[in-house]
């Protein structure tokens, strides 16, 4: 390679420099935003920003095919999958700021800055007087162009890794099936008739279904327990999840009105488990 060509290759065109100085900081900002955003969805969106910038940077770096793949597959498919899962998990699942290991963030930060300084210094030192060849050769972006040349490489030199990726993809598909698929048509599910018979045979706690909430009460809320004919609370109707608030409050109100303790009489259907304070 001649000396003049080398001199040309050492720097990049002004247009590329402008693109870099616009997109590079954006990518960095996206990365930083991702690790600092409390909300996971925000993190994901920041990462999308970084990936889009990188895609554009690939394109200006003579890698148009990769740039498009980055935008379509990475940003378009993979990150959307992330967002999809985040939505499934619950959008508002933000991180706690409590440190489990004391000083972990500080040390991680120090470590990170150290690593960054090391790598950046290493690269800057090692490449300051390196010949940049550029992708102009027949085997690179010349001849049939970027995409065809990549294809040729994949099906010759990189044939084996390429075929090996099929094993990866099959594994991924099988894995997703294993962890996600429930066979709904399992044998051994009881029919309604069998269920009724089982109930009356005593295989369940009680033959009838649990009393619904709010049946004899003033509200239809789950928080409002059912009342038995004698006016006492049916304990089975109390929701296990939210009993602490509503049912006890109701109990207090009832006591305040009646001025007595609720004592279920002989007609009470429920076994005499007291629901009281």
């Amino acid at each position: 390679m001649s000396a003049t060509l080398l001199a040309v290759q050492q720097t990049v065109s002004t247009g590329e420099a402008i693109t870099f100085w616009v997109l590079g900081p954006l990518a960095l900002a996206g990365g930083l935003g991702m690790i600092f955003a409390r909300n996971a969805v925000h993190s994901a969106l920041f990462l999308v920003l970084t990936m889009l910038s990188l895609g554009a940077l690939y394109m200006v770096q003579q890698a148009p095919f990769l740039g498009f793949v980055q935008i379509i597959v990475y940003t378009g498919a993979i990150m959307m999958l992330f967002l999809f899962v985040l939505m499934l998990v619950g959008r508002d699942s933000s991180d706690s700021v409590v440190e489990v290991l004391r000083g972990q963030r500080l040390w991680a930060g120090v470590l990170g800055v150290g690593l960054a300084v090391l790598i950046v210094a290493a690269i800057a030192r090692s490449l300051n007087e390196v010949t940049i060849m550029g992708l102009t050769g027949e085997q690179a972006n010349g001849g049939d162009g970027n995409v065809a040349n990549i294809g040729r490489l994949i099906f010759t030199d990189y044939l084996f890794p390429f075929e090996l990726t099929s094993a990866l993809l099959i594994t991924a598909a099988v894995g997703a099936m294993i962890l996600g698929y429930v066979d709904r048509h399992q044998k051994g599910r009881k029919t309604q008739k069998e269920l009724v018979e089982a109930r009356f045979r005593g295989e369940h706690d009680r033959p009838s279904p649990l009393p619904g909430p709010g049946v004899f009460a003033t509200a239809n809320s789950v928080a409002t327990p059912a009342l038995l004919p004698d006016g006492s609370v049916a304990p089975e109707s109390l929701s296990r999840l939210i009993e602490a608030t509503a049912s006890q409050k109701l109990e207090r109100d009832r006591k305040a009105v009646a001025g007595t303790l609720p004592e279920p009489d002989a007609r009470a259907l429920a076994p005499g488990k007291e629901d009281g304070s």
Partner: protein
Amino acid sequence: MTPTYYLLLSALLFTIGAVGVLVRRNAIVVFMCIELMLNAVNLTLVTFARINGDLSGQVMAFFVMVVAAAEVVVGLAIIMSIFRTRRTASVDDSNLLKY
């Protein structure tokens, strides 16, 4: 400006990703940080392909994307399965296995 700047950018992105893995507690965010690290690697590969005048760097970046895609599927499936049980994706709450 020389293409070396791309390498510096990717080094910074890689470090940000690594720090993110260490500081974030949400398993999905941790995983996204790992994705960021892979992206940084891709930028390095593409830049070196240009510096070396050799297309195989781009091919490798392509392979990395394929691998990342497979990894995302498996990873998210595993994280989902634990999330559905625990109702949390925080790696701190996964503490049944104690030292």
